[in-house]
């Protein structure tokens, strides 16, 4: 899932400066699972904003509305009749959702309330870790299911570098060295031959906005 983190409150407050009537839109999918931008987080943030603005003697009307997915037209439609009552929209979705919202309502300022952080896993409630950089050319089949692009601080395809430190990464002694883990896992599986060959330079495919149209489907005109 996509993991996001709420922006510092002062930054959100600064973004809302000058607006008196705002709709805060939550997203019920990834950001709700990681406890950042679902219905509950929308109400909590709204209460904080409401209180802060009252204290400043500059009240704001901030309402909340959470849809299933902000990255999906089907769900955004539910907002069509609501947004025009507001001076600005605050979004607690990931960067994709925020942009899709802004694209649908280009006449209304859309402001982010979260920083989109990574594609990751749910280790436990409230604990998430990055696992994928969506590089568009997956090598997990060669690297024992451990991503060198994401998990190696240098994103090396032919690691480990000389900085691996007792199985840990040179940048942080609490961060395991990706290539040490890759080696250990492949050794365990009897597949070290996977990394004996040199991996050639990568064709970076994530340098321009990417589009995917599945076979049998077409981009609408």
């Amino acid at each position, binding site marked *: 899932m996509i993991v996001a983190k709420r922006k510092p409150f002062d930054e959100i407050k600064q973004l809302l400066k000058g607006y008196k009537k705002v709709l805060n839109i939550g997203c019920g999918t990834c950001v709700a699972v990681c406890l950042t931008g679902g219905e509950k987080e929308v109400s909590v943030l709204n209460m904080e904003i409401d209180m802060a603005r009252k204290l400043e003697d500059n009240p704001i009307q901030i309402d909340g509305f959470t849809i299933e997915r902000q990255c999906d037209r089907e769900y955004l439609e539910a907002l069509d009749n609501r947004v025009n009552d507001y001076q600005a929209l605050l979004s607690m979705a990931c960067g994709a959702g925020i942009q899709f919202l802004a694209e649908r309502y280009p006449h209304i300022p859309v402001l982010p309330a979260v920083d989109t952080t990574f594609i990751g896993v749910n280790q436990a409630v409230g604990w998430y870790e990055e696992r994928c950089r969506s590089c568009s050319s997956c090598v997990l089949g060669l690297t024992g299911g451990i991503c060198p692009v994401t998990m190696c601080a240098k994103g*090396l395809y032919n690691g480990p570098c*000389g*900085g*691996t*430190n*007792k199985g840990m990464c*040179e940048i942080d002694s609490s961060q395991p060295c990706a290539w*040490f883990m890759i080696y250990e896992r492949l050794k365990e599986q009897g597949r070290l031959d996977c990394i*004996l060959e040199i991996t050639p330079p990568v064709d970076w495919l994530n340098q321009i906005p990417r589009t995917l149209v599945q076979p049998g489907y077409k981009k609408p005109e």
Partner: protein
Amino acid sequence: MKSGSNLEKVLLAGHFAFTGELGPPRGTSAEEVRQKASFLKDHVDAVNITDNQTAVVRMASWAASLILLQEGLEPNYQMVCRDRNRLAMQSDILGAYALGIRNMLCLSGDHVKFGDHPTAKGVFDIDSMQLIHTVKRMRDEGKFLGGADVEHPPRIFIGAASNPFADPFEWRVHRLAKKISAGVDFVQTQCIYNMEKFRTFIKMANDMGLTEKVYILAGVTPMKSVGMANYMKSKVPGMDVPDDVIKRLKGAEKGKVAEEGIKMACEQIEEFKTMKGVAGVHLMAIEWEHKVPEIAERAGVLPRPKV
């Protein structure tokens, strides 16, 4: 002959090579580079010019390399993958060669987190293995990475680093083998303090036939103080400093610790001279360039061969 560099000629002639290292300044003083170079002149076969080492901004390694050329020394131009993409790297290689640089050391580079711009974007477009292969392809096939022809290919003697001490130990020779198939001509190792582990590493490399395919220069850094030894042991990733080394330094008479460090380095060099599979020594006398003549003299590596 691949490059005709002095270092290549020395190694090819079967001499025990002796290389040094020079860190460019954090400013614009060519004089500072010349000053450091003066200590190394005639005492080493080539001088590594570090490339923003420890991710701290310094004078460009190609620029400091050129100053060395002006002074009559041979640079070993270091290039890290951290700061430039494949376009910049290949164009720097062309420029470096055009201006007389003949040796290159291809490295990944320390992570930006260690340096003076810890939030910079680390590039790592290609890694050190891929960089080695890029230089080899430019030299031997006259092709850029993208496939186009290189006009007048650069004849570079290709170097890389090897850390025999980083984990997993048993993988280190395989990584060296990968660098050899990528096209490396010579390898300089991480500073060696754990001689026993290094002997094992070299034996493994000998057994795999690797030392017949690549020149290995053993890395030596004399310890200046007990504090330095402790720091290297605990703070420098991938460094292996056995307790015996620290104990011996601690046992030195007051004011004689650095002397003991030099003595230890000379003993190491003595052993490397006769160690099968070791083709020379790379002396990294960090901010201690003025001591190089004395160390070289005492290590019995002078005069350097004229080839």
